[in-house]
């Protein structure tokens, strides 16, 4: 693509994402350093970073598209194709495996109707067996989108998947996420 193509004709991003990108880039002493953060912002909106998005990011940071492509193809959490609308991650590594995470992953494959590493045909769910998620004391650990759920094993895994499928996971006390269990309030005087 020629250098005369305008940024806005190359890729349509929301005003909010563009504002966030404009905020993050000047935080770094060198523009290239902002690459991962800009990729995250673009991926958060589009679900994946395809060749066009790569080109857009490269232009924005005054780099070559390959400088962005080589990051997308290296980092496990960067995507060339989007995951499903709900993305379920199960920790595979030893501490979680010792608490039954292989069983959890199988239960999810069966109940969500999607093979590990894939997106369900209707695009609703995707399932990923991930490496250590750093919450090993409460394994098996499951992350749905951005929330972390602990001790998801055996019967609990089945119940968890049922609630997830019914869209009723939020607010269920026994499956309160690590994030929702934190105290984030400004204390009263």
């Amino acid at each position, binding site marked *: 693509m020629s250098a005369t193509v305008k940024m806005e004709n190359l890729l349509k991003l929301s005003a909010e994402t563009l504002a966030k990108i404009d905020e993050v880039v000047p935080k770094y002493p060198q523009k290239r350093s902002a690459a991962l953060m800009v*990729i995250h912002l673009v991926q958060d909106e589009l679900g994946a970073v395809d060749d066009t998005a790569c080109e857009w990011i490269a232009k924005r940071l005054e780099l070559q598209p390959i400088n962005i492509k080589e990051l997308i193809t290296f980092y496990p*959490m960067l995507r060339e194709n989007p995951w499903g609308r709900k993305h379920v991650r199960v920790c595979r590594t030893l*501490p979680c495996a*010792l608490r039954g995470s292989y069983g959890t992953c199988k239960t999810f494959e069966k109940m969500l109707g999607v093979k590990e590493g894939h997106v369900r045909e209707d695009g609703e769910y995707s399932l990923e067996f991930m*490496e250590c998620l750093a919450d090993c004391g409460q394994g098996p650990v499951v992350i749905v989108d951005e929330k972390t759920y602990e001790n998801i094993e055996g019967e609990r895994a089945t119940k968890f998947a049922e609630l997830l499928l019914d869209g009723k996971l939020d607010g269920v006390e026994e499956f309160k996420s690590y*994030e929702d269990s*934190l105290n984030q309030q400004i204390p009263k005087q």
Partner: protein
Amino acid sequence: MSEQSPKERRIILKYADDPAYSNRIDCYLRVGGYQNLKKAFAMKPEEVGEEVLKSGVRGRGGAGFPAGMKWKFLDRKSGKPIYLICNADESEPGTFKDRQIMYKDPHQLIEGMMISAYAIGASQAFIYIRAEFHEGARILNRAISEAKDKGFCGNNILGSDFSCDLVVHRGAGAYICGEETGLIESLEGKRPNPRIKPPYFPAVLGLYQCPTIVNNVETLCNVRHIIEMGGEEFSKIGKPNNTGTRIWCVSGQVMKPGYYEFECGALTLGQMIFDVCGGLRPGRSLKAVIPGGSSAKVLRADERFSGTLKDGTAFDWGLGDIPLDFDGPMSAGSMSGSGGIIVMDDTVDIVQAMANINAFYAHESCGQCTPCREGSLWMRKITQRMCSGGARKEDADLLLSVAKQIEGRTICAFGEAAAWPTQSFVTKFKDDFINKASETAENRDPKSLQLI
């Protein structure tokens, strides 16, 4: 949340699980927060560095290198900007301590970082946090803006002429970004291929080829407490050469896995497993323990460890007698690493556990050095085949030979991290690996859990 053990001495996690405490600045200020920043700013930067050196605090990220010494290596004469980076990539399997600090008490880290930045003369600091910690990054960003509003971070800190900006940078799921030069490459916007050494320390040439200090989250939090107590007083916590507390993360097959903060050397591995963590499940016996994250060499339950300690005293330990500090697991031929203790009972098929670990390293090798890229892959393939009914008697020796060809032949310590588990598992449990060849569907242990 882990149930707190009555014998713990919580310094870093003192408020983390207090129900009346939150991760907001008002709570932190109420318990004396940022008072030590004021105290440090009344000192000369060199004096702050001197206190850290005197404290003897060793890095909590895995290598256990004295933090004060690392700071000493800083090239201050180059005239280039100096950078401070907090390694919050927490990704060594079995480790989950930095998460507790950042999610529950982020201001402690920010105070520790601003004191450290002042000491080393850094006007730009970064927190490199793993991308799986979505909420963690949000919490840190909010905490930084709270601290900026009150003049504890950013421009003209505490009204002085010292300024230091703090930026939260998210990784993208790669374990190799925990290696400090890989982290720096990643922060420069490149693939995180670790850099060739020398220079051995980024303190000489780091981010943008400028002097850079990279410290772990827990280490930087300790700096705040060192200033509060004074280096001398801090060094009295724990044992000589093993000062301060450590947050041990226990996972695997114990009744009460969790994070527990103890003075270094305050308890043994046996006390940790059987007393603090409530022991094993009913009817089970101990098979093996990995004492410092999955890269550490495995310890066999019935092993004896003997030799002479650094101070000249002879020791003869069983697994349960190993003191939990930096030097204990090291004397037993392994390491305390990042403090991740992974416990395995007699239901564990040791070859499957090995295959699980090998799959991790094969997935996470950056691919830069051939011995590591190819070796980790073949170790995964061999152990996976062994667990799928294709085991052969000669596989044990084959695995050892592959591991031997990785160790010492790579740019970074990932090579050792990938090779040591195989070397220790195969050497210490050789019978399990040899007997795998005669395993059939009929004689397989029905209790054993699928690990690969």
